[in-house]
């Protein structure tokens, strides 16, 4: 199993790259477009980003994001 230092050593650049891709996609959104602002998918992405940024989150961020992006099971 990986240690905290190992994870950063091994995955920091991958993580940086993935975050920059997300940032660049968000930058492509037309900021003045009301339809875009109301898009459900954008709302989901913003909620997912909040999960990533939560310093108190446990090791279940991927699972939480998948739940966020799932249909209700009724």
């Amino acid at each position: 199993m990986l240690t905290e230092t190992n994870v950063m050593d091994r995955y920091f650049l991958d993580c940086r790259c993935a975050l920059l891709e997300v940032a660049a996609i968000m930058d492509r959104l037309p900021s003045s477009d009301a339809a875009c602002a109301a898009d459900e998918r954008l709302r989901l992405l913003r909620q997912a980003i909040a999960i990533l940024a939560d310093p108190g989150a446990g090791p279940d961020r991927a699972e939480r994001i998948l739940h966020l992006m799932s249909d209700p099971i009724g």
Partner: protein
Amino acid sequence: MYYIQPHYHGISRTTEDYERMAHAGVVAVAEPSFWAGFDRHHPQTFLDYFRQISEFEPTRAAQYGIRHFCWIAVNPKEAENVSLAREVIASMPAFLDRPTVLGIGEIGLNKNSANELKVFREQMELAIRRNQLVLIHTPHLRDKLKGTKLTLDLLRELRADPARVWIDHVEEHTIKAVLDAGYWAGMTLYPTTKMSTSRAVDMLERYGIDRLLVNSSADWGPSSPSTLYDCAMEYRRRGHTEQELIDVFHNNPVRFLRQNPKWDIGLLGLTTV
């Protein structure tokens, strides 16, 4: 390193795939029935497809020393047409007796529709009557969580033997329910979307390797058989031993598939000489 590709759609791939898999150490593939890239209109088209994967594909794989097995089914993506599906299902028993056919799959759900559920149930009932192994597809995106729950509910109602059922395409939010209910769980790896190699290794470490299968994507879309070896490399980089690699990428598929006596590839173990 020897690998088994337990979920490989050869009909959508070039012969070069087989050559590259052989170079990498793949000794066998199992090809589930799936979508042909377009919706078929005639039951005979399905039956010719079953002939293709049970007669022709084994010869293509054999050129590179790879064993080829297959599964027979009406896939969930084409299950909306219930009358067509029923005509195909009526012809499936004859194919189940063929020497390289391992069971019924992939069946299950794509959009969780009522018709998909109907065709899924009828194929599960056939599998139980014929004591067949079962491979179940779960939906890919926002439908997956609900589709997995519907799948588990149906299997419980039909009293399917969990040891003989493999539920595929699990992710972080569905794996636990599948394993807790006693089924085999499969993780299908994609180069750019859905499940990644690193996340698959995270789940191998979190849940242990019992009843977990890893397979590459190999279909009509962006996919690559090499994701299987990428995953093995990631598993090795995290400090797992060669025997652990063999257990995950060769022996686990053997443990599940050898429940069908047609599967004649045994377990591998490392010894020091």
